[in-house]
């Protein structure tokens, strides 16, 4: 898929996401929108996995440690054909597998997540098994930046470096906001690049809402031979909807009808500009 096509796809995903959240009357809207471009590039350009190969042993793996943004993952998985889009109409409904956090009941989801600070260790185990078995699959793990306050991430980071897991790629959705406010006000994370480098990672920053930059960055992994990689993807929470961008209250805000219509108008204009 060309970069232009990917850009158009991102806008479509944002529209689908807002429709989904509006129908379900729930969702982590801000974080969903910040990481959508990352998921788009991964699933449409980078990951060697699809609905046909998902059950096989040798595909690339993706673990969404940032589990509260399940809606974004579901939108992308549905578009990639893992399950019919209409299934998402049951999101958060009684008895549905499509719930607020990823579960393996949903075809295409690798690991149950939601509690933060869990995904990276599981990704390390998968990557380590790949090395032991001399397989060429890679393991990508998407983390939220606020999630990095969980110490389990740094335990996993040490193990990843110790075992020289250059088949592991951690991606930090660095939108700078968490539910209470700025990540730096809540518990200072910076300098993340120096921290990950000190933990033994090859580090690259990129604009996590720029399709071209994401493609080039992911195509360059591993950044350092024999080291795990981390992509510090600078994003904007609520990206793509002007009044949601960089506003903490949209962490899990649900738009009312007027807000929804305004957001969709903006996205239609963005789509038209890409035509």
């Amino acid at each position, binding site marked *: 898929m060309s970069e232009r096509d990917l850009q158009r796809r991102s806008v479509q995903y944002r529209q689908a996401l807002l429709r989904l959240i509006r129908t379900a009357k729930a969702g982590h809207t801000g974080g969903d929108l910040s990481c959508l471009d990352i998921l788009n590039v991964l699933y449409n350009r980078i990951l060697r996995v699809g609905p046909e190969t998902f059950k096989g*042993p040798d595909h690339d793996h993706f673990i969404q440690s940032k589990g509260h943004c399940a809606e974004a993952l579901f939108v992308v998985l549905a578009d990639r054909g893992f399950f019919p889009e209409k299934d998402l109409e049951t999101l958060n409904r009684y008895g549905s597998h499509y719930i607020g956090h990823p579960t*393996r009941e949903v075809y295409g989801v*690798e*690991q*149950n*997540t*939601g*509690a933060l*600070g*869990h995904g*990276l*260790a*599981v*990704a*390390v*185990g*998968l*990557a*380590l*098994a*790949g090395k*032991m*078995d001399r397989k060429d699959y890679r393991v990508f793990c998407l983390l939220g930046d606020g999630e990095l306050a969980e*110490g*389990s991430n740094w*335990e*996993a980071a*040490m*193990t990843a470096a*110790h075992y020289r897991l250059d088949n592991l790629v951690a991606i930090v959705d660095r939108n700078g906001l968490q539910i209470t406010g700025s990540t730096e006000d809540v518990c200072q994370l910076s300098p993340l690049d120096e921290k990950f480098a000190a933990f033994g990672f090859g580090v690259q920053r990129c604009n996590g809402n720029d399709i071209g930059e994401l493609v080039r960055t992911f195509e360059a992994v591993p950044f350092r031979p024999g080291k795990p990689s981390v992509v510090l993807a600078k994003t904007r929470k609520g990206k793509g909807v002007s009044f949601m961008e960089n506003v903490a209250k949209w962490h899990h805000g649900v738009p009312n009808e007027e807000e929804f219509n305004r957001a969709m108008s903006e996205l239609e204009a963005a789509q038209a500009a890409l035509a």
Partner: protein
Amino acid sequence: MEPAQANLEVFSATLLELARQNPDLLVVTSDSRGSAKLAPFAKAVPGQIVEVGIAEQNLVGVAAGLAAAGKTVFAVSPACFLTARALEQIKNDLCYSDRPVKVVGISAGVSYGALGTTHHSLHDYAVLRAIHNVTIVAPADGFESREAVRAAAQLPAPVYLRFGKKRMPHLPRVDAGFALGKASLIRQGRDLSFLACGETVAPAFEAAELLAKEGVECRVLSLHTLKPLDYEAVRRAATETGGVITAEEHSVSGGLGEACAALLLQEGIHTRFKIMGFPDDHTVTGSQDEIFRHYGLDGPGLAATARKLLAKR
């Protein structure tokens, strides 16, 4: 009964046997290969041990990832840390995610004796019993330890295996076989039943032998599988004998005793009943034997409890 071998040593020897047959069997450990008696394993099959350092949360997460790739994984660490510090990883990464990792808690209960409460694991049955999709096993002796490890390796589901450090006697048994979820009949008797698990089965048997000299015949069951509990064996013990004493190296809250009590009460079975374990209090320290004696979990202590219970009308 002469002490034979520590259950933990049987575990490590059995694991090595299995690892030699299955190159996909891995042990993940958190700087505990020495205390887990895994040094011979590491020497014999060095490619099958993964060290993550002192990091129990990571231990379980990495084990989940290895299991996701098809490995048979034993995650080994002191029980006190593994089932407290990494409880959420056990719950989410293994049980909720259906990753069939074998979580092995070593030096469990009060094995660490004088190291104090930080190193005692008297909560693990309670917390794990409340989590869906984990089989909880506390073998009594070498035979049960060997069979439990073999059975756990075959089970396509998460298992918690609990081992102490003490050398345990080989127990006589009425039932020759072993199956997860099925109590082992150690001694037949109609006057009273001791329902025990792990390293309290041997003192329960000792108590039964002491009482036999007084003409009181006690049934002794090893309820090595706390979950799923062998309900039928518990029911029969309560209805076929004159009372039930449960014995466990665990808090009286949420362990074997409460599991049996809840079952019997809900079934409408009323009998003389006593839960022997650790009270809801700071734990006394000392050797494991001294601590058992302090709380009446040794042979003479359990026999004394039996006499009192039988005297009740």
